[in-house]
């Protein structure tokens, strides 16, 4: 049995239960229970109609809960009425779930957890492991999130922007557990892009594909970070790059530029260079200018300074750095790199060491410490 296939059915089945009058939180629980049963039963007894099976079992799970829960009279009444089965192929339910699970009233962590469960069909345990928190904590986070959106009407058009931010977080900030969160984020974004014509949805999908294409080259077997310029480009996934570029071109053709398309365009220009030396830094700087215009983000300005340093030389890069807050994450690392390119090794070594002390991840701490050590060794000679 392909668990991925099973999981793609999750949002549609939740949608069917909701259309039959079950509230979202209860429907979502019932479908989770059915998923767990499917994982157990399908390998030996595969159903002819997986979706029909899931709907039937979810409905039965819901009835079990509703019958047992005598305190809730309203549900009992609903059970007695036994509503007609809902439409089997509701078009917008999955889309409605994306909006609900990323509702602006939710915190990012809650929206991520709820999206992975209700749209992604992951179990609470899998999500808890992926984010290194106890299962009880993750269960509470999810049920709290469901309570927060309990008053929100299902099938309301929602905010695409918050959905994209949630998917971006899943892609960019996961741990490496037994669930591949980056691949899951791509699957969910692809599914969203198939349901809604929106330039930024396509832009985010392109961004993910283009970065995912580099994954094998980003780290060594022992977990060291490999900077973009030093990556073995023959290990980049050309199929993902081709798809990412195609998706991006279609998005840009709609002429509704947004930050994800701009970021994807930068990634596409890197993907386009057969060697680091062939990188079209002038065009990359132009895209960073767009990105800064669109977001006014200090992180975009910081990355722009790196690109300016490549396009116009390290002095120009350092000039672009001036005016930015030195407390920005990775500021010292960027400054160290530009000073090294400018030939000022003592300052670069000191800045690399400083960057290592404030780096937000262990591979970065190790990478920056090695950079400082490399320069210090040169300086001792």
């Amino acid at each position: 049995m392909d668990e991925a296939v099973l999981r793609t059915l999750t949002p549609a089945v939740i949608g069917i239960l909701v259309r039959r009058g079950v509230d979202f939180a209860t429907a979502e629980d019932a479908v989770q229970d059915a998923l767990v049963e499917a994982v157990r039963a399908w390998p030996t007894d595969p159903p002819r109609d997986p979706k029909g099976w899931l709907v039937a079992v979810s409905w039965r799970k819901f009835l079990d809960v509703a019958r047992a829960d005598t305190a809730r009279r309203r549900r009992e009444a609903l059970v007695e009425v036994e509503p007609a089965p809902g439409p089997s192929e509701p078009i917008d339910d999955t889309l409605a779930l994306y909006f609900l699970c990323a509702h602006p009233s939710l915190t990012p962590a809650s929206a991520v957890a709820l999206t992975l469960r209700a749209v992604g069909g992951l179990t609470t345990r899998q999500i808890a492991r992926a984010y290194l928190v106890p299962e009880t904590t993750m269960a509470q986070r999810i049920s709290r999130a469901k309570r927060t959106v309990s008053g929100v009407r299902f099938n309301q058009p929602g905010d695409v922007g918050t959905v994209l931010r949630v998917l971006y977080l899943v892609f960019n900030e996961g741990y490496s557990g037994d669930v591949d969160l980056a691949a899951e984020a791509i699957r969910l974004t692809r599914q969203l892009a198939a349901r809604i014509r929106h330039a930024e949805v396509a832009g985010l999908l392109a961004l993910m594909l283009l970065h995912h294409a580099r994954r094998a080259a980003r780290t060594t077997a022992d977990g060291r970070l490999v900077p973009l310029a030093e990556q073995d480009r023959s290990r980049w996934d050309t199929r993902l790059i081709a798809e990412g570029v195609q998706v991006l071109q279609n998005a840009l053709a709609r002429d509704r530029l947004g930050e994800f398309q701009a970021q994807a365009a930068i990634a596409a220009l890197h993907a386009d260079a057969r060697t680091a030396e062939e990188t079209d830094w002038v065009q990359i700087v132009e895209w960073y200018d767009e990105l800064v215009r669109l977001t006014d983000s200090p992180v975009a300005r910081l990355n722009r300074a790196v690109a300016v340093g490549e396009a116009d030389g390290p002095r120009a890069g350092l000039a672009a750095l001036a005016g930015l807050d030195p407390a920005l994450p990775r500021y010292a690392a960027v400054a160290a790199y530009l000073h090294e390119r400018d030939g000022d090794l003592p300052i670069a070594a000191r800045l690399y060491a400083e960057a290592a002390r404030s780096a937000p991840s262990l591979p970065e701490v190790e990478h920056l410490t090695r950079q400082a050590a490399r320069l210090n060794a040169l300086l001792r000679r």
Partner: protein
Amino acid sequence: MAKYLLLKHYRGGPTPLYDVPMDQWTPEEISAHVQYMRDFAARLEETGEFVEGQALSPEGTFVRYDGEGRPPVTDGPFAETKDLIAGWMVIDVDTYDRALELAGELSAAPGAGGKPLHEWLEVRPFLNEPPTISE
């Protein structure tokens, strides 16, 4: 989503505002303090922000490698150690400000006289995974 360690020191932090050792409290005051910590952890579990909490015995032993085929060397305990960690709580929260807010609440645990302890807690971020999108 970021994990923080709320670290409780017996010694080594800034000078405490109230420095009555716990063995000078009344048993009821100790119970109230312990209950406050439990309730705090339970509340964080409900909000989906609790990762774990542990307390440490104050006395430990220093250990180091002493060469091939030799047993490790031990030293201590050192009664006069400058920094002494009492325990910690790990939280998983949306923002740094939320981590500070929670540390502030935990620091209000009641001490002698049932009044908030105002004890100093150290907030330390965990190192994360590096982000996938790096430029």
